[in-house]
């Protein structure tokens, strides 16, 4: 399993990195930490690269290296990489250019599989999409953004499950809010929910929502299947059934002390473009971390 963790700065990315590495550990996954820097336009690409080569010769770090160095220190402090890597220090000299806008450092992981540190330059959605497509990540972990349209772009265009570390506080205690329904994605969603609950060592609230008063058999079966899996995994859980608008109810039930785990929309993307979708509405309205499983 492969997990991509997108960070941006030491000031804002502690929650994202903390949550991301916890999830990577729970899945025993190969983690890649990426910092996406500003896009350099075509007119200046070579000139900027020439200036950065001169900076290297003066031993001045190019932008983004400080962010990776901070990530390295975080991994070292939390013993997430092997002692030999920690002792050797941040290996910025082994930052290998791969293509015009991608450079990477490889580290041996201790708690998870290997850990990669990557620098990319460009539009964040384009770069993450390209990284996910070329390396085949299963989950992309990213901090919340105030940018308009960012939530839509993430859900629609990144071809992996998405974990948004919205207001995530590593010191707060959370529960999982596992949204189940009759969709085909529910089974995978429940499996991911179990792994995340194990990673964080927390209980799960299974939430089944119907827009009608009567709950169909498929809804009930999905809820009981989720409960069975959680019981077998030894995770404390509660079952809740509610009637109303699923997006509103998931966001309001989650409050600020849950991590939402829900499936991605199976609607046609063209329809989603004009009519939105359940996960998109929840992501836009919730005040807590959310994992959208694809």
């Amino acid at each position, binding site marked *: 399993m492969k997990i991509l963790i997108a960070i941006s700065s030491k000031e804002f990315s502690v929650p994202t990195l903390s949550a991301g590495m916890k999830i990577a550990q729970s899945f025993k996954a190969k983690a890649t930490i990426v910092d996406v820097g500003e896009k350099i*336009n075509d*007119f200046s690409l070579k*000139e900027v690269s*020439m200036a950065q080569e001169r900076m290297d010769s003066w031993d*001045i770090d190019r932008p983004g290296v400080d962010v990776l160095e901070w990530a390295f220190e975080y991994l070292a402090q939390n013993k997430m990489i092997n002692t030999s890597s920690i002792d050797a220090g941040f290996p910025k000299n082994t930052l290998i250019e791969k293509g015009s806008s991608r450079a990477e450092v490889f580290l041996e992981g201790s708690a998870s599989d290997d850990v990669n540190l990557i620098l990319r330059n460009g539009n964040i959605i384009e770069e993450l999409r390209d990284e996910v497509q070329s390396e085949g990540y299963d989950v992309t972990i990213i901090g919340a953004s105030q940018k308009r349209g960012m939530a839509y*772009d993430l859900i629609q265009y990144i*071809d992996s499950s998405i974990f948004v570390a919205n207001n995530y506080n590593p010191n707060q205690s959370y529960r999982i809010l596992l949204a189940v329904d009759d969709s085909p994605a529910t089974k995978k969603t429940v499996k991911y929910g179990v792994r995340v609950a194990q990673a964080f060592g927390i209980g799960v609230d299974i939430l089944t929502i119907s827009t009608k008063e009567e709950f169909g058999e498929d809804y009930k079966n999905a809820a009981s299947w989720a409960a069975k899996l959680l019981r077998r995994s030894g995770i404390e859980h509660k079952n809740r059934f509610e009637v109303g608008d699923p997006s509103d109810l998931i966001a309001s039930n989650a409050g600020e002390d849950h991590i939402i785990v829900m499936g991605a929309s199976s609607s046609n993307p063209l329809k989603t*473009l004009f009519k939105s979708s359940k996960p998109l509405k929840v992501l836009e309205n919730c005040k807590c971390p959310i994992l959208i499983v694809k």
Partner: protein
Amino acid sequence: MPIFSNQSVANFLFWLSRKKWLVTAFFISISFFYLPTPEGLSSQGHRTLIIVLTALILIISESIPLPAVAILILIMQVILGVDTADGVASSFMSDAVFFIMGSLMLAVSIVHQGLDKRLALAIVNITGNKTWKIAFGFVAISAIMSSFIGEHTVAAMMLPVALSLIRNAGLDTGKATKLSTLLLFSIAYGCAIGSIGTPSGGGRNVIMIGYLSEFGLGRISYLEWMKYAYPLMLIEIPIAVAILWFTFTPNQKIMDSAVRKLKVSVAKSGKLNNNQIMAIIVFILVFLGWIFLSPIIGLGIVALTGVFFYLSFRLIEWQDITRRTNWGVIILFGAAISLGIQMKQTGAALWVAENVLYSLQFIFQDIEIIRWLFSVVLSGILTNLLSNAATVAVLGPIILDMGGNPIILGMATSISSAFAYLTIVASPTCMIIHSTGLVTSNDYFKAGWKLFLASIFLLFLTSTFYWPLLS
């Protein structure tokens, strides 16, 4: 079963979201193609203007790579019947394109020698340790050097000097401060100001000289250009320093220990080596060639002769040149110049010029002022959105068809296209300092608008009172 899977629809929507300007350009060009040709404009001129519009949309939106825009311009010229394939090919390559190619290769060769440490020592030896003097030194040396060897080269060499001083002052090179903003803008604005000084300061100057000569409107030699532009460049230096200093006044008024540390670190690099001495000699020969030989063999051939010497003396390897030269920009400028020539030949430039003059006569009565304002203000604005060489390549033929003194209007257009102070994308020097992560787009506007207005005012005074004395 739906015809298209959700994944393929999502892929299409993603492509559409990234290429919306390409699609827009396509529909605009198709719509304009089927509109009747305006009165007074030839059919070929009409089609040329469609290509100009399409190219402008694609360059500003960056929805496809620059070399693709260049290739599209060439294809459209032939397919729309503006010119034959041979005609397009011959207008694509000119001495101006040779010059742009040669100067980019020279830039790579000079930066490769690692002369920046010598430069650092020279700056701090001249300026001492007062911060305002260091900022003055950065602007002045960037301007004077970039007037001869091109702004990108100087910016690439000056950047580590500034960052090293910032680091030596005990500041984090990953965090913006007023000192870092002041020094980085001193480089970017110094380079922009300097690029007007001589023809070799920027490709756009050579494009304008090429147009003036090609259209039979006049010839300007290297030294004549300097007579017109160098005084203006020198006056702009202290003005830029004052604007930058009062906009980004740093807390550190003296940088004693930073300068000392810089001197120590530079001293470790030893004396000039043979390659560096040879590189300087070759460049001096190129400079002399531009002054004395360019009227006979052209500025581009002189620049390429310099590249020949750098390669022959093994001062740089061909692989290094190919890896670091921006070939996309060379192809684009070739295509833009070819389009400019077509604008002149098809009458499109004249049609636009006449319509602009006619429309603006309702606002300003004096046609001289209209010509001047159109050439300077539009070039200044476009250069901040597009690229200065592309601006001159496209606007040049229109402005030269407006009447009046072509030398004065041509020079004013070329010089105002160096006023790239307002945006990150305005020039590679602006992008170079932005790539450090220490300056934001707001910073460009904070100081940029003041320098932009001051530069336009100075250009007005120079072109009105000084240049007529030279004509």
